[in-house]
């Protein structure tokens, strides 16, 4: 009995010995040795732990023995984990490494203007595309309020930093869109085919972009579709220009959205005096569908869009007595399927296929011009997070384009032109973070074009350094090449073309504070290998060469602020550019006619709570653009007067789900002139007559009623406007 008792006591003593308290103590510091207060230090799987004091010190007792895992966590730093011997862990110093994923890490910003939730430094918010006065739901029009772009009113496409519109490529979920703009004719502005509400993020690069993207000399516009719609809903839109219906269905892992639109500009064209004579108004019938499926570690998206457009008009032409009739029909189909997902440890896979088909049937005067284009892209990209400090990506692209054009003057000439092009490209890129303050991206793109029979190697590099909490500098360099536009390469059977080339140097300064962003960017662009020809118009028998060259240099400034006054947001963009080229049939180096030296946009948005209204003004100004007057000896000597347009919009929430929207462009009715078309031959007295290129109408107005039917009464279509 006694022995048994003794045994029990010994046993108890032994247990209490096992339960003996070990003291764990130390200090938590950052990389510079400064103490980190508030860090959570504990032994994994136990209750034993403490929070570090103001001096970074910690101390706690533990009843555990042997080897344990100690964890030190604090949001701004990477979690520290190590195995320790609890009896022997006293006065240790734990050095925490900065978490480079934390919000204030440096981001390379040279050349890129981002919008959307994923963007750390957002210059545009997703809603901005639709609530910017004058944009009328056109993504491109909203982007034209950003620095580095030119307002080319008679064209409507994006002109970036002295580049032609064709030098900008559009990508949806990383896949190229061969035909991003609606059909148009001479001096009739086009707009983006894409409805802005499908996209959750937009990155607009005005130069120096990643090696992932090729075939663009000036700029890339990257649109990413939503991963997940908000909810089941039906949207109805009644507009002065047409009507639209949409529906979204959401299931556990997948969702489906469909939208259809019918646009008819007849009422608008009847109400507002037009500068052209319409035989048939602009009409379009279109629809788009998106299906998304979420896998455990990835997402599959399928996007398809179809639209059919037509219009018929008579345009005055200085070369002819009577106006020239253009009757156009366009059918466009676009499909995009992509998968993006993670696998293994730290691997990410992006793959996809896109296909675009465009068919144009144009009757220009008595000529018939029919064209069709088939364009496809295959893409595969892999990315490996080797550590938080180094990421490596590599991938391949394959582009296939087939273009055919049949011209028939219905008298004597009947010709067919076209081309087949296949481009294979490989690229690799490394993202290196030296610290939270210094980041670098280095890439290389190798592409082979079978039509041009050439191989190009394009290096790209950018670096960013953060000088303070709010400001940073970035620098980007890159070589870019692009196949000449279709107007040239459809004559490939007569001439062997080469790629056009550009080299970018960009220096960027950015200042950000909550609610405020300031950017200044200086750039220099060097163009070489541009196509030249020796005739008045591009023709199969023109003599072509690739000896053209040019440059563009300038300064872009951007300021956005929402702190000045409650409920007021505004931004100001200013661009200065100096650019000359010798290309096309230019006899000397000269500034092309789409370039204005100075551009200024001021955008304001104000929410009036009492009126449940958002009102906005946008003013766009650009200095005069050059034009060539053949009556003068010097080439491109003329300059138009400056351009100005003030737009206004007003969104009124009848209830949350019903919105009344009103917008009008060029409120002041400024008579803008974009340039002059001169006669090809002088008249009897030896003078070349001219005709001003003006907007199709001085004003555009729009009234719409938007109604969302859904379970959630707070959802509305404000973002669709």
């Amino acid at each position: 009995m006694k022995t048994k008792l003794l045994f029990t006591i010994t046993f108890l003593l032994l247990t209490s010995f096992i339960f003996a308290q070990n003291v764990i103590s130390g200090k938590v510091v950052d990389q510079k040795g400064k103490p980190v207060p508030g860090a959570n230090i504990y032994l994994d799987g136990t209750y034993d732990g403490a929070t570090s004091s103001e001096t970074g010190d910690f101390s706690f007792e533990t009843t555990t023995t042997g080897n344990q895992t100690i964890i030190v966590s604090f949001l701004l730093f990477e979690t520290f984990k190590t195995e320790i011997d609890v009896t022997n862990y006293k006065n240790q110093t734990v050095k925490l490494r900065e978490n480079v994923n934390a919000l204030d890490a440096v981001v390379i910003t040279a050349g890129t203007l981002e919008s959307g939730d994923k963007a750390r430094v957002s210059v545009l918010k997703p809603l901005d595309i639709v609530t910017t006065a004058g944009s009328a739901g056109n993504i491109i029009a909203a982007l034209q309020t950003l620095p580095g772009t030119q307002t080319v009113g008679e064209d409507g496409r994006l002109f970036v930093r002295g580049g032609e519109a064709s030098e900008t490529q559009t990508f949806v979920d990383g896949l190229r869109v061969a035909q991003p703009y609606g059909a148009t004719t001479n001096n009739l502005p086009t707009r983006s085919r894409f409805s802005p509400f499908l996209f959750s993020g937009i990155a607009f690069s005005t130069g120096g972009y990643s090696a992932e993207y090729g075939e663009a000399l000036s700029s890339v516009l990257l649109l990413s579709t939503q991963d997940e719609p908000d909810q089941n809903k039906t949207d109805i839109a009644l507009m002065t220009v047409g009507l639209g219906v949409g529906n979204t269905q959401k299931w556990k892992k997948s969702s489906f959205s469909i939208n259809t639109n019918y646009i008819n500009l007849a009422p608008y064209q009847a109400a507002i005096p037009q500068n052209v004579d319409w035989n048939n108004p602009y009409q379009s019938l279109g629809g788009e569908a998106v299906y998304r499926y979420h896998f455990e570690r990835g997402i599959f998206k399928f996007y398809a869009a179809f639209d059919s457009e037509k219009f018929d008009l008579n345009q005055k032409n200085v070369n002819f007595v009577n106006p020239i009739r253009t009757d156009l029909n366009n059918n466009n189909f676009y499909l995009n399927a992509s998968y993006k997902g993670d696998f293994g440890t730290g691997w990410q896979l992006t793959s996809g296929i896109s296909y675009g088909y465009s068919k144009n049937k144009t009757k220009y005067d008595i000529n018939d011009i029919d064209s069709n284009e088939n364009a496809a892209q295959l893409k595969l990209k892999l990315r490996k997070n080797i550590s938080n400090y180094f990421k490596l990506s590599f991938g391949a692209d394959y582009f296939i384009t087939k273009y055919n054009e049949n011209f028939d003057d219905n008298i004597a000439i009947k010709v067919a032109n076209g081309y087949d092009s296949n481009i294979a490209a490989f690229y690799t890129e490394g993202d290196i973070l030296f610290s939270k303050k210094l980041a670098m991206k280095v890439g290389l793109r190798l592409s082979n074009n079978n039509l041009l029979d050439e191989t190009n190697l394009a290096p790209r590099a950018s670096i960013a350094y953060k000088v303070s909490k709010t400001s940073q500098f970035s620098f980007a360099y890159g070589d870019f090449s692009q196949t000449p536009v279709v107007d040239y390469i459809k004559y490939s059977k007569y001439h062997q073309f080469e790629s056009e080339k550009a080299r970018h140097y960009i220096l960027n300064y950015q200042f950000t504070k909550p609610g405020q962003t300031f950017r200044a960017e200086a750039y220099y662009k060097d163009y070489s290998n541009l196509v030249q020809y020796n005739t008045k118009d591009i023709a199969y028998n023109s003599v072509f060469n690739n000896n053209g060259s040019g440059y563009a240099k300038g300064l872009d400034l951007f300021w956005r602020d929402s702190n000045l006054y409650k409920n007021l947001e505004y931004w100001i963009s200013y661009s200065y550019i100096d650019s000359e080229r010798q290309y096309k049939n230019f006899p000397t180096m000269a500034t092309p006619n789409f370039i204005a030296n100075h551009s200024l946009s001021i955008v304001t948005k104000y929410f009036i709570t009492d009126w449940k209204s958002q009102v906005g003004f946008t003013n766009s100004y650009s200095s005069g653009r050059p034009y060539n007057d053949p009556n003068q000896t010097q080439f491109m000597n003329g300059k138009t007067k400056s351009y100005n347009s003030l737009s206004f919009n007003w969104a009124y929430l009848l209830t949350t789900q019903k919105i009344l929207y009103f917008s009008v462009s060029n409120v002041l009715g400024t008579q803008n002139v974009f340039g002059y078309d001169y006669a090809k031959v002088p008249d009897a007295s030896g003078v070349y007559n001219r005709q001003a290129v003006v907007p199709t109408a001085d004003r555009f107005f729009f009234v719409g009623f938007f109604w969302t039917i859904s379970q959630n009464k707070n959802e509305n279509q404000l973002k669709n406007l």
Partner: protein
Amino acid sequence: MKKIITLIALFVVVISSAQTQFEQGMTKAFGLWKEGKNSEASAMFERIASAEKTSYLPNYYVALVNTTAAFSEKDKTKIDLLLTKAQDALDVEFIKDQNNAELYAMQALIYTAWVVADPMTNGMKYSAKVMEAYAKGKAIDPNNPRIVFGEADYQIGGAKWSGVDTKPLCAQVDKAIELFATFKPETPFSPKWGLERALETQKNCKK
């Protein structure tokens, strides 16, 4: 025989001390929270979560402490950090169990905090998610007072912008208050908060 009894006794002591350890830890964490020491409370809950992988409560409170702290924080960078921490903790529990109504109520609250932090940027994006989280929670437990109240309160909050009729929403608040009265938390540490705010909203409803 006695040896066996002793062993059993010791065994029982160990087990019961484990139970009280959870209770002690939770009580201590709640004490810190009450004293306004949010980061210490959050750290304590985090430590408990690392030891008690079977209970959703410690992570739930990591989320709740940080989310409520975000509501009273003005610095947007800090709000971001707090809500990220809350979301990370909640995500751990969502992986284990997608059928807990309280987790959805918590999720809705995190989204609400994002909206409150920057309505212009986050309003559109998160409003629908708030409602979706409440809807999912409601499907699991239609009589959870925090869900019934939270859903109504969120819409009342938006009413001055949207002009939605608040009458039926206020009726929901009244219903939630009744539910609060009859609500029995599963354990002493299970969520039971919300009545005070519901009473306040009710007062404003009657104005």
